[in-house]
C-alpha cells in the first residue's frame, strides 16, 4: 500500500486513452465501472479538445458483479462498433475490471467483428500511465503494420521517416511534431507518417514504408521502434532533440542513418547567440533544479548546463522507464539523481537545495510557488496552461528559442540583480518588491512563507516535516544583527544563505549566529 497525496502519472489505461484519443479512428472499449469516465475531462478540458475521447466505458455496477459483467462488456463492444464504425477497436480494462478477470480481449475477439481488434493488457496495480501509452502504441503497431508494402524511397529516391510518439495530452507534442517535420523537410527527408497523433489505423498500417523512425518521445515509442527495427529493419534515433545541441545531435544521427551529409549550419536558430551575448553572462552558474519525465528531464539538464551555463544542482524523474537517462546525465553532471514518484520527497529535496530556478512539472510549479522560487514547466503531467493558443514547441530550432525565453524570463535580470545587491534598503527598489518585470509586489507573501519554512525548525508544512523524519533540532540561535544582515541579501539567494549559515553553525558548534558567522559561512561555501 502506497500513501499518495498527488500523483505524477495516472493509471495505465489513461496512457491507452492518450494513444486512442490521439488517433483519428481508433475506438477504445474499456471494461470499467461508473466514475472512470472522469478521464474524459482531461482531454476535453485540459487539452480543450472539441471531441469526446473515442472511449466507451462498460459502466458496470455492484449488482452486476459475478452475474453478467461479461455480457455487459460484449454488448458495449457491439454497440460501439455499430455506432462508431472505427478503423480499429482497442480493447482494455481499468483497475476494477482487472479484478473481475472477464478477459475482455478474448471476449471481443470472440465477437468476430469485421475490424482489426487489438487487446492490450494494462496491469493497473503494477504499471502507470506512460507504460500504458507505450504498450498500447506497441500493440497497435504490431497488429496493424502491413508487411506487403515497398519502401517509399524506392519510388521517390528520397529517404523517408516516421515521427513516432506524440500523443494526446502530451507536453507540447502538437507543436514539436510540426517543428520536426519542417526540419526533416528542410533536409529533403519525407515524413511517411506521424503516429499516433492525428494518425488513422490505415495510415499506421503503412509504418513500414519508411526507411527509419525518429523517436520523439521514447517513453511512448521506444518499445514500438525496437520492434520495427527487428521486424522491418528500420533503424531509429536515440536523441531527444531538445535545445540546439540536441537538435544538432539528432541531425547527425539522421545523417548517419541516411548516409548523406546534412549540414548543421543550415539549422537557423537565435538561441546560441542569445546565450553567448554578454547580457546573458549573469546566467552563469545560476543554480537550477530539474525534475520531470525522465528522458525530458535528462535532456533539459544538459541544455541548462551546456547551452545556458546554469549549474544543475538537482536532477530527477518520476518514471522508472526514464530513470536510466537521468542517472547517466546526473553522473556526467556530478550530482545525485532523485528517482521518486513521491511528490513530498521532491518537495523536501527542493527546499533542501534552494535553487534559483526550478524546471519541473505542474507539481514542482506549486512547490516552487510555496517556496517563493521561480519556476518554468518543462514536462508532463500537464495543466491547461501547458496548451498555449500560440505555436510553442520545445523541440528543434524554434523549441530551443522557446527554452531560452521561458527559462530565463522568470529570473531576476542581470543589472537589477546588481542594484538589488548594492542598495538593499531603498524604499522602492528593494527585493521586497520582487523582480520588477514579474509584477512587483505579487510575489512577497509567498516569499515570507518560504523563508519561514526554511528558518523555522518546526516546519509549518506538515507534509514536509514528516517525510524528512524528525526535523533537526536547532542548537543555535540567530542574533538580531545577523538576522538583519541576512535580510540585506537579495531574496532569491537568501534561503540558500540562511541554510548555509545554519549548516556552518552546526558543523562548527556555533551556538550564537552573529554577523561574523554569516560571512564566515559565505567564505566557507562560496556563493
Amino acid at each position, binding site marked *: *500500500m*502506497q*500513501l*499518495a*497525496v*498527488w*500523483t505524477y*502519472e*495516472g*493509471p495505465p*489505461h489513461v496512457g491507452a486513452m492518450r494513444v486512442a484519443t490521439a488517433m483519428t479512428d481508433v475506438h477504445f472499449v474499456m471494461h470499467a*465501472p*461508473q*466514475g*472512470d*469516465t*472522469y*478521464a*474524459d*475531462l*482531461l482531454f*476535453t*478540458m485540459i487539452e*480543450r*479538445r*472539441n*471531441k*469526446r475521447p473515442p472511449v*466507451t*466505458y*462498460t*459502466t*458496470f*455496477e*455492484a449488482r452486476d*458483479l459475478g452475474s453478467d459483467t461479461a455480457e*455487459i462488456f460484449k*454488448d*458495449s463492444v457491439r*454497440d460501439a462498433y455499430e*455506432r462508431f464504425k472505427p478503423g480499429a477497436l482497442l480493447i482494455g480494462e*481499468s*483497475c*476494477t475490471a482487472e*479484478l*473481475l478477470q472477464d478477459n475482455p480481449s478474448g471476449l471481443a475477439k470472440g465477437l468476430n467483428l469485421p475490424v482489426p481488434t487489438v487487446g492490450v493488457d494494462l*496491469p*493497473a*496495480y*503494477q504499471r*502507470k500511465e506512460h507504460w500504458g501509452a507505450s504498450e498500447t502504441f506497441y500493440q497497435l503497431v504490431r497488429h496493424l503494420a502491413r508487411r506487403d508494402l515497398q519502401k517509399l524511397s524506392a519510388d521517390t529516391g528520397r529517404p523517408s521517416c516516421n515521427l513516432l510518439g506524440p500523443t494526446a495530452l502530451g507536453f507540447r507534442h502538437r507543436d514539436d511534431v510540426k517543428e520536426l517535420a519542417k526540419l526533416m523537410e528542410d533536409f529533403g527527408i519525407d515524413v511517411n507518417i506521424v503516429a499516433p497523433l492525428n494518425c488513422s489505423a490505415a495510415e499506421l498500417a503503412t509504418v513500414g514504408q519508411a526507411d527509419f523512425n525518429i523517436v520523439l518521445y521514447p517513453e511512448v515509442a521506444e518499445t514500438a521502434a525496437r520492434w520495427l527495427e527487428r521486424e522491418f529493419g528500420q533503424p531509429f534515433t536515440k536523441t531527444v532533440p531538445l535545445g540546439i545541441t540536441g537538435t544538432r545531435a539528432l541531425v547527425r544521427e539522421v545523417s548517419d542513418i541516411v548516409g548523406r551529409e546534412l549540414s548543421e549550419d543550415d539549422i537557423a536558430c537565435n538561441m546560441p547567440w542569445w546565450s553567448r551575448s554578454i547580457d546573458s553572462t549573469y546566467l552563469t552558474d545560476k543554480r537550477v533544479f530539474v525534475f520531470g519525465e525522465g528522458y525530458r528531464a535528462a535532456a533539459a539538464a544538459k541544455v541548462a548546463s551546456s547551452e545556458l551555463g546554469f549549474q544543475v544542482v538537482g536532477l530527477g524523474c518520476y518514471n522508472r522507464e526514464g530513470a536510466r537517462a537521468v542517472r547517466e546525465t546526473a553522473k556526467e553532471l556530478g550530482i545525485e539523481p532523485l528517482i521518486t514518484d513521491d511528490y513530498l520527497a521532491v518537495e523536501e529535496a527542493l527546499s533542501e537545495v534552494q535553487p534559483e530556478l526550478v524546471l519541473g512539472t*505542474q507539481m514542482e510549479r*506549486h512547490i516552487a510557488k*510555496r517556496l517563493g522560487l521561480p519556476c518554468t514547466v518543462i514536462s508532463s503531467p500537464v*495543466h491547461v496552461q501547458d496548451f498555449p493558443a500560440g505555436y510553442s514547441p520545445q523541440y528543434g530550432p524554434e523549441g530551443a528559442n522557446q527554452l531560452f525565453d521561458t527559462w530565463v524570463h522568470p529570473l531576476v535580470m542581470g543589472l537589477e540583480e546588481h542594484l538589488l545587491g548594492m542598495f538593499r534598503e531603498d524604499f522602492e527598489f528593494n527585493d521586497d518588491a520582487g523582480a520588477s518585470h514579474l509584477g512587483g509586489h505579487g510575489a512577497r507573501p509567498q516569499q515570507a512563507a518560504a523563508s519561514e519554512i526554511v528558518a523555522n525548525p518546526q516546519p509549518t*508544512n*506538515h*507534509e514536509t*516535516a*514528516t517525510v524528512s523524519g524528525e526535523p533537526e533540532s536547532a542548537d543555535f540561535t540567530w542574533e538580531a544583527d545577523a538576522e538583519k544582515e541576512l535580510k540585506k541579501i537579495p531574496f532569491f539567494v537568501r534561503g540558500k544563505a540562511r541554510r548555509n549559515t545554519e549548516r556552518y553553525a552546526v558543523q562548527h558548534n556555533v551556538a550564537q549566529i552573529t554577523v561574523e558567522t554569516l560571512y564566515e559561512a559565505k567564505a566557507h561555501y562560496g556563493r
Partner: protein
Amino acid sequence: MSTTLISSPPAGRDILRERGQREVFCGLTGIVWLHRSIQDAFFLIVGSRTCAHLMQSAAGVMIFAEPRFATAILEDKDLAGLADPNDELDKTVDRLLARRPDIKLLFLVGSCPSEVIKLDLSKAATRLSARHNPNVRVLSYSGSGIETTFTQGEDACLASMVEGLATGTKPAASLLVVGALADVVRDQFERLLTKIGIPDVQFLPPKNASEMPNIDGDTQYILAQPFLRDTSLALEKRGAQHIAASYPLGVDGTTAWLRAAAQAFDIHDSQVNSVTELPAARGRKALERYRDKLKDKTVFFFPDSQLEIPLARFLTKEVGMTALEVGTPYLHKDYLADDLTQLSAEVVISEGQDVEKQLDRCREAKPDITVCGLGLANPLEDEGFTTKWSIELIFTPIQGYDQAGDLAELFARPLHRKTRLAV
C-alpha cells in the same frame, strides 16, 4: 443499453429509465468539498492509482496547497496475498496520523477495487478507532463508482456520522439542517431560522468534529440538499423526524423551505413573512436582472448531482425558462415531491443514463442551454450548443435569497457570452 418507460402512479408521470454508459463522477468526488467542509477531518481513500488520479483531476489545482485527503494505493502485493491489506492499512493510518496530529476525524473511504476485493473498512474503522482513541475517531463509507454516483458520496459520508451522534441533552426540540453548504449560506440560514424563532438550530456536517449535532426523538431535520436519502433513513432510525420541503433554491424555494421548517415548530406564517419579506424582495430584485435574458429559453439537463429537479423547478417557475429534458442519476421521489409536482407534465424526466442515446435526444431537442459535465461541455459547444458545466452548481453558493441572483447568473452567463463574442 436498455431503456424502459415506467409510469409512476403517484405523480402520474412517465419516467424514462436508462442504463448504459454514464458520464458521471463516482462518489469519491464528494471529498473535494467535504474535506473543506469539516475542518479537522481527513479522508483516506483505500483504492487504486485511478482513484488518486480522479481526485487530482477533479480537484484541479485550486486546493493543491494542503489537501486533507489522500489515497492508500493498493499494489500487487496487497492483492496477491503477499501482504495483509489490513496490516498495511493500519501502518498507513499510523503514518498519516503521526504526520497530521491535527486530525480529529478520519474517514476510510471505500472504492471500486476495495469493494471488489471485499476489504471490510467498517471493521477496520472500529479497530483503528480503538487504537487511536480518544484523539481520533475513525469512520468509514463507500464512495465507489459501482455503488455511488457523485453526490451520493456525501450522502454516504453523512450517513456514516449519524450512528455516532450523541443523544440530545437539551430539553427543547431542535432543528437539524442536513447537507454540506457554503459557509456564507449556512450562516444566512442560521440567522434566518433563529429570527423566525426556531429554538435550536444545528448542522450536519458540522464545521468541526467537536461540533457534532445532538439528536433524539425531539429532533426534526430538514434536508438542504436533495441527494441525502441514506442519511435521511439513518436519521429516522435514530428517531428524528423528517420535515418534507422543496429545496432552498431561488426566492420561492427558499421561502417554502423556511416555511416548512417553521410549520414543524408551530410557528405562525406571519412570523415567517415578516422575517423573510426584506431578503425575499432583495432576491426578487436580483433575479429581475436576468429574467429577460432567460425567459422562454429552453434547457436540457444531463444527469449529474441530483440537484437537477429542484434546479429545473427554479428555472421554470422563477425565471420563466422551459425545461425539455431533466436527467438525474437517481430519482428519489419521496424527497423531491414538492419540486417534482411543480414541473409541467411535458417535461421529460430521465433517470440513469445511456450517454450516446441522450446526446442523440439533446441534438434532436436543440436546447438553448445544456447543463452537462466537463467531459461533454466542450464537444457540445463545438457542435454549436451553449452549455453550462454542472459541477459549478455544486462548487458555488447557490442556495438562499441572497444567492438567487447568482444562481440565475450562472445560466445567463453562457448565453450572454455567446452574444458577446465575435470569434
